[in-house]
């Protein structure tokens, strides 16, 4: 049986949007079985903004899965933001996995990080600051492998903020690609297998891409989609 996945990222809510976002999600239960939100939920990453996000997504008729983005880390209260989202009944992935829809759909992922793409990426070499930057991505990719391995579901989807491939960055200046994603994320998912990878972060990027292993990648940043959310139907035969 097919599953319809709705996805959006980079909603960047703040005080000005309080009470106004929810209407964009009206009727989502007729279009999708689950909603994935790929980070940059807030503008400044304050707890106040986190609470606005929680209120806008609370009690939706379909399960909601979040990861945070770099903006949500800006005020050093990312754990508190995750807690208020969970209190609102939503799932928050932090390099972890969750099984939904009676065990049929597995979602793995987290924020992800940068470093660049194969052949043009940073290495764990030189100054401690450079090593720490690259190591952060490497460790995330490792945890994603573990998370994906733990899933035994009909479909597997990966939710990230940073991009695993450069195809979905087309439109961004190539100079900043290393800050937009890392091939290590794609490599991890290609090794474990998944049906779809959803990410955001690249506001000027392109919706559609693919990993070297052939897994579909979708950049669902709101400025890219210019619609409330995208809907992807897994198992086309039945949709």
């Amino acid at each position, binding site marked *: 049986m097919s599953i319809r996945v709705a996805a959006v990222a*980079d909603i960047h809510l703040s005080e000005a949007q309080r009470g106004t976002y929810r209407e*964009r999600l009206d009727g989502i239960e007729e279009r999708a079985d689950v909603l994935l939100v790929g980070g940059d939920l807030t*503008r*400044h990453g304050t707890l106040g903004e986190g609470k606005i996000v929680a209120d806008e997504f609370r009690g939706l008729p379909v399960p909601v899965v979040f990861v945070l983005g770099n903006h949500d880390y800006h005020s050093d209260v990312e754990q508190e933001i995750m807690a208020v989202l969970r209190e609102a009944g939503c799932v928050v992935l932090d390099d972890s996995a969750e099984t939904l829809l009676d065990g049929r759909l597995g979602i793995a992922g987290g924020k992800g990080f940068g470093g660049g793409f194969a052949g043009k990426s940073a290495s764990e070499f030189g100054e401690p600051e450079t090593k720490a930057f690259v190591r952060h991505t490497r460790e995330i990719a490792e945890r994603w492998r573990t998370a994906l391995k733990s899933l035994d579901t009909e479909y597997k989807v990966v939710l990230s903020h940073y991009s695993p491939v450069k195809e979905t960055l087309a439109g961004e200046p190539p100079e900043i690609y290393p800050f937009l994603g890392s091939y290590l994320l794609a490599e991890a998912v290609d090794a474990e297998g998944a049906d*779809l990878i959803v990410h955001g972060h690249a506001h000027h990027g392109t919706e559609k891409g693919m990993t070297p292993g052939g897994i579909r990648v979708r950049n669902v940043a*709101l400025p890219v989609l210019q*619609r409330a959310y*995208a809907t992807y*139907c897994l198992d086309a035969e039945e949709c």
Partner: protein
Amino acid sequence: MDTPHYVAARVQQAIAEDGRTNELGIRVDVRGDHLFLRGQVAGEDQVHLLTDVAREAAPGLTVHNEVTCVEVREPGEEEHL
């Protein structure tokens, strides 16, 4: 007067780091006494804050704010994978 190149970089940095804006994707160009802002943001209030931050970071330049709000349409058709 500062080199336009560095003025633009300073304004872009200010827009990214100032707590009122924290916008990373705004393009800044300086031509003579004129400073141009381009890009998209999530909310109308954010557009005006960009002008404030740019003016403070580059006093003396005329700021032309061409930033628009992201338009959000209905969800539309689903894609079959």
